[in-house]
């Protein structure tokens, strides 16, 4: 049985907790999104919904950013269909978001306006409601711009910024809010590694990792134009920072050239490492704990042909730490690496998902994998290549098999970005029913 996070203090304790959970659930305790915060309740069976944070497109419907809820439970009438959609009004460069530690609320950010939209997903998981909009993130945080990762910690939301209000560059900070929206604090990244992107905690080790991207002046520019600007292309991050999580203090700056983006800690006990990929250099990197307790960053593999700039943008590590999914935007491809030997990733599967692809999310049991298409409004491709979709696949350990897809352009919804999993069982106060044996209906 898998443990659900890197939080467990010992393997023995993990086993005991998993047993307790299985008793409590009267069903299997093995299914759901492995990359979520260790402090977050996990969906432990088949997910019912995907919450898809979607950028508005002028002329498509109301043109506003929206949270789109898609049914994903096989056998139900809403399987593979849009269940509901909540427009937030205006376009804010909808990007990432995450649940609070009680999983009652989903906070979603806009990289352009720095607005934060808070949805109640507990009252009716099929129809989230917009309950609060934060418009003072920049002011309250002391000038942080571009709320990116939303990471649940007890009683709070930890948010990594991308930029700042002073110069629109990459110097940025981590910002904390209480679950009720009260500003708690801002912690700026260190001077020798000022850029930010993702933030992930290994509570077992009291270590936090941050990665680095670029500032607003770059991420809001059209990509072809940006790539022709040699000076602007120098202003990308090339560091990761290892933090004392409890103290929120930087301990080490690791050199990781080429804009390391998403960070995924291994989940199993004593797997003291994390993965990332670099957008500009197309590499997989590992961050490994050494015997002395410090960390080292190691280049592990090349993704595709770096000369063609595949642009790895998202990764997903299976809950057993076996498979690392990598999506590369420019070639619209998903690559699956066997990382059983974490220092020697082995490419085991490759599949074209679309003309462009961005986010990849898998269920806890790894049987279902979902992809969306949009990176940033000004970085998405143009013309016929501007495909906008949500695509679901089954994964059998060897190959991805299509399950269903939704054409977000055809349905005039927008550019789909991050996905979060929803479950009725989380909120209905029932002992969970057993999950269906099959993960995804085939050929839907």
């Amino acid at each position, binding site marked *: 049985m898998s443990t659900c996070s890197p939080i467990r203090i010992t393997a023995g304790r993990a086993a005991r907790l998993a047993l307790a959970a299985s008793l409590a659930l009267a069903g299997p305790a093995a299914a759901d999104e492995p990359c979520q915060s260790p402090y977050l309740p996990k969906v432990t069976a088949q997910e019912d919904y995907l919450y898809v944070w979607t950028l508005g497109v002028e002329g498509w419907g109301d043109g506003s950013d929206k949270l789109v809820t898609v049914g994903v439970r096989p056998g139900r009438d809403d399987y593979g269909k849009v269940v509901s959609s909540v427009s937030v009004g205006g376009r804010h460069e909808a990007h990432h978001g995450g649940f609070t530690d009680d999983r009652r609320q989903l906070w979603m950010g806009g990289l352009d306006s720095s607005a934060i939209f808070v949805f109640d997903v507990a009252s009716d998981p099929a129809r989230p409601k917009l309950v609060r909009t934060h418009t003072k993130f920049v002011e309250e945080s002391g000038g942080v711009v571009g709320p990116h990762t939303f990471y649940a910690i007890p009683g*709070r939301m930890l948010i990594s910024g991308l930029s700042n209000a002073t110069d629109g560059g990459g110097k940025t900070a981590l910002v904390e809010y209480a679950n009720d929206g009260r500003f708690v604090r801002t912690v700026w990244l260190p001077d020798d590694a000022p850029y930010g992107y993702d933030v992930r905690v290994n509570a077992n080790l009291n270590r936090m990792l941050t990665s680095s991207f670029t500032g607003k002046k770059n991420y809001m520019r059209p990509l072809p134009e940006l790539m022709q600007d040699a000076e602007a292309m120098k202003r990308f991050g090339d560091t990761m920072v290892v933090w004392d999580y409890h103290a929120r203090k930087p301990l080490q700056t690791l050199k990781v050239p080429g804009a390391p983006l998403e960070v995924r800690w291994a989940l199993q006990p004593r797997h003291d490492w994390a993965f990332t990929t670099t957008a500009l250099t197309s590499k997989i990197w590992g961050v490994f704990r050494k015997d002395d307790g410090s960390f080292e960053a190691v280049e592990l593999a090349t993704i595709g042909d770096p000369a063609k700039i595949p642009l790895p943008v998202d990764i997903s590590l299976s809950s057993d730490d076996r498979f690392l999914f990598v999506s590369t935007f420019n070639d619209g491809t998903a690559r699956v690496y066997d990382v059983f030997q974490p220092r020697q990733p082995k490419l085991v599967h490759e599949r074209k998902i679309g003309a462009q692809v961005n986010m990849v999310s898998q269920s806890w049991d790894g049987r279902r994998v979902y992809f969306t298409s949009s990176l940033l409004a000004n970085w998405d491709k143009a013309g016929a290549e501007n495909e906008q979709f949500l695509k679901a696949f089954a994964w059998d350990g060897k190959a991805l098999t299509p399950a269903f897809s939704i054409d977000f352009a055809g349905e005039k919804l927008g550019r789909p970005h991050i996905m979060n999993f929803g479950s009725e069982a989380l909120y209905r106060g029932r002992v969970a029913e057993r999950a269906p044996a099959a993960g995804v209906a085939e050929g839907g």
Partner: protein
Amino acid sequence: MRPPHRGPLPVSAPGTRCGPAAGRRAPRAAALVLAVALAAGAGAGAGARADTADDGLRFDPPAPGSYALPPIDRVRDRTLLGPDGAPAPLLGLGPRQVALVAFVYRGCHDGAGCPALLAAWKRLDTLVAARDELRGRVRLVTVSFDPARDRPERMAELAAALAPRGDWRFLTAPDPEAIRPVLDDFGQDVLPLAAADGAPTGLLQHVTKAFLVDPAGDVRNVYSAGFLAARVLVADAETVLLEQDRALAAAEAPEAR
């Protein structure tokens, strides 16, 4: 303060939910104490001996006072019931004190839930009582969120079984309505757990949480099940106490007058 919860409350995570298999009867007092003992015992070598280097913690907490714990939330000091049935404050803190508050219910026999929390508080009680500079300044509070069944005499039973060495209080409320504002203040979710067929089980599901609170009612840290390492909680309590000492010393200094 948090707004009142509306609608159903969430199921907790594996390992953080209280509520065993449907249809099981709530345990007797002895069973809960046994569960606490087992939780503590399971932690021996993995958490019970938190005052030693072999407590299973894979890191040393940062030094007390070397880091900040900014206020996260503010809670009111409401009146509840003590184990003797008399009114008792939830916190009742003086200016040089902090409270570590944990919500539990006696009917819980998920070893990873309330028993684990009580076991952590038992370890904390031992640690705090052993240190002169902390004894009397760190108050442990255990509050039942099931006041309909956890009457004062049942909390007294629990207190007797756990035999506090220091300042450890066991509280309940006159009725479920009276505990609701406290739970809302802390953002502590509680939901009756039904069986898969909808039949009531008498069990409650909740995310297991604990809170460090200062005399002003500011919540200075929040802890989840699985992250209840006593050495970390003590370091946090000391951090806030050091902050109080510095503030009071500054206020009493001649130049401050």
